């Protein structure tokens, strides 16, 4: 019998493999390394931010601010590189510090003022987007030789696929995220918090530092994602990446993480991202389907995975009830 704890992850993986096989059967070119490399490159910024979102959702929270933080990072970098002679690496460090601090501040607000994460990060979303507008409402191009150097780093695979730096960075982020989630005390605390704040407190989880840490990670990764996005587009635009938070949440859910928290895998999110990227690639290959089908298919997938989660939770509770032999009121 398959362990039900791994079932959602398996379903996600199976969905991805099946979808890829179907796509490849129709368009054999989908198997080329170019498509694979582009899948990684095009979804790099989304993947990085989804790692942070996985932590937030595992803890039972939500972070709506990430899309705006990405846009803010891009505009900030563009403006700083245009107006000052700062080296991009210094600017990267500065912007990462800002976004991590921003996330930590939201986490502190959520914890110390006992406010729902939804509304706090909503305020953060307005604030970050507003800050981006204040910096510049135009799209600011980034022309710095260091950017060209970074963009020219790639590994050319046989078949012509170019695995670029940002795709590799995404994979590294996923590995680091998985290690933190499953192999450190902080990761266990995140899972504990997702199981319920009350129980977590009784278990001795430091609620304050964990909550602040989770949102700091999410903010910091949104900043990293913004850096990647600016490398990807070579520009900073305050209207960019609107709604990325929804894509990230969708990827996390499709990846099998329970939205109520406490259960899920960072690796699942990776396949969630790949499935969403695959849908877009398929639509590009097809050429006749319109882009709005992406949204509908992602919505349908989201629905299917939520139903799956619901069914699993229901199945486990009934089994547990039968095992204990008592019908406890839910």
């Amino acid at each position: 019998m398959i362990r039900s704890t791994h079932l959602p992850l398996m379903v996600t993986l199976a969905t991805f493999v099946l979808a890829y096989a179907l796509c490849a059967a129709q368009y054999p070119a989908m198997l080329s390394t170019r498509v694979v490399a582009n899948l990684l490159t095009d979804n790099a910024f989304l993947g990085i931010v989804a790692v942070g979102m996985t932590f937030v959702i595992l803890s039972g929270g939500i972070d709506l601010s990430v899309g705006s933080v990405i846009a803010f990072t891009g505009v900030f970098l563009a403006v700083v590189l245009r107006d000052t002679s700062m080296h991009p690496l210094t600017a990267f460090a500065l912007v990462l510090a800002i976004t991590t601090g921003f996330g930590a501040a939201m986490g502190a607000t959520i914890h110390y003022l006992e406010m729902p994460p939804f509304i706090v990060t909503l305020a953060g979303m307005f604030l970050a987007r507003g800050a981006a507008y204040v910096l510049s409402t135009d799209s600011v191009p980034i022309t710095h030789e260091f950017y060209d150097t970074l963009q020219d780093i790639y590994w050319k695979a046989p078949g012509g696929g170019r695995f670029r730096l940002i795709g590799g960075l995404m994979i590294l982020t996923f590995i680091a995220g998985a290690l933190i989630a499953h192999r450190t005390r902080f990761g266990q605390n995140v899972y504990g918090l997702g199981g319920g704040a009350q129980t977590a407190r009784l278990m001795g989880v430091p609620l304050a530092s964990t909550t602040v840490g989770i949102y700091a990670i999410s903010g910091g990764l949104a900043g990293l994602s913004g850096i990647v996005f600016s490398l990807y587009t070579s520009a900073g635009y305050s209207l960019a990446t609107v709604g990325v938070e929804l894509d990230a949440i969708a990827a996390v859910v499709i990846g099998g993480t329970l939205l109520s928290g406490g259960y899920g895998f960072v690796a699942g999110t990776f396949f969630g991202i790949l499935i969403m990227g695959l849908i877009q690639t398929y639509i590009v290959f097809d050429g006749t389907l319109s882009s709005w089908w992406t949204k509908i298919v992602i919505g349908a997938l989201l629905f299917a995975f939520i139903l799956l989660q619901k069914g699993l939770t229901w199945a486990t509770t009934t089994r547990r009830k039968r095992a204990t032999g008592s019908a406890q009121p839910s």
Partner: protein
Amino acid sequence: MSATTPSLLKRITPQLIILAVVLGLNVLVFPDFFDVSFRNGRIFGNLVDVFNRGAPVALLCIGMTLVIATKGIDLSVGAVMAIAGATAASLVTEGHGWGTALIGALATGLLCGLWNGVLVAVLRIQPIVATLVLMVAGRGIAQLITEGTILTFNNEGLIRLGAGTVLGIPTPIVIWLALGTLATLAVRRTALGMLIEAIGVNEASSRLAGINSRVLLICVYLASGLCAALAGVIVAADIKGADANNAGLWLELDAILAVVIGGNSLLGGRFSIVASLIGALIIQSVNSVILLSGMPPEFNLVIKALLILAILVIQSPKIGHLIYMLRASGPESLPERPKPAPSKAPGDSTS
């Protein structure tokens, strides 16, 4: 029922103070703000504009208040607006009358509400997740209806819903005032409001007390869908076209914000539609201040964010507790002192 009026007034006092402060700021930056003139058979004025432009959010927040009172949330209203607007526009361009278009749009809104309601009430999915599905897929569906274009129309009747007047008053104002009154009467003159509050406070016990929470929850989401559809039609009629990408974009957040500014807890329970409507007016007045003062509109979002934060801090249970403790430890405090209700002094700290 005369006893309810003073308590309502007491309930909405903080909101009224904030509104007065923001309107006062409007007068500061634009002295003729309160001037209302009557020309060409309709009233004009900045204040009228605040009421008129605030109509979509006001409509949305009527439904949103009810949903939030049941401890839920409806993220899909923006997408439902886009779908309803697209439906109305496509029906009109196919040659149907404006009545059919309006009914069609409202029916789509109800259908969307039914979908959300079934997911929440029958399948027991958390509201934020359940409505996220439609929020993600909804704009795609709307684009499917408009076939990816901005569907423009020239139907007089439909346009009148967004840009026309009734007795000199712009139609959107009449619609949201009427719907707001209707909804308030429906929940306050019957037991409906109390039942909804009971679900929000504790659904399990409300069910044990004999409330059919499943049907009520579905009804609440139906109401939200209906309000969103109406708002979508108004927005589409206003620009004489249905824009599947931008109609109602992020309005769900404004609607939630209006409900929160209205002093309703996101954790469900007691609610006030009137306070939410004032919240919607506050948001619109803030927009108006920013526009009239000639400040760059870039600051709009920052100011809005700071406003939410200020209001949230005031409403936060921790701060309420802190104020309570401070008062209790004061020198002349009496042990019988009535417990002060939270969020009582927002006037000075938010302005």
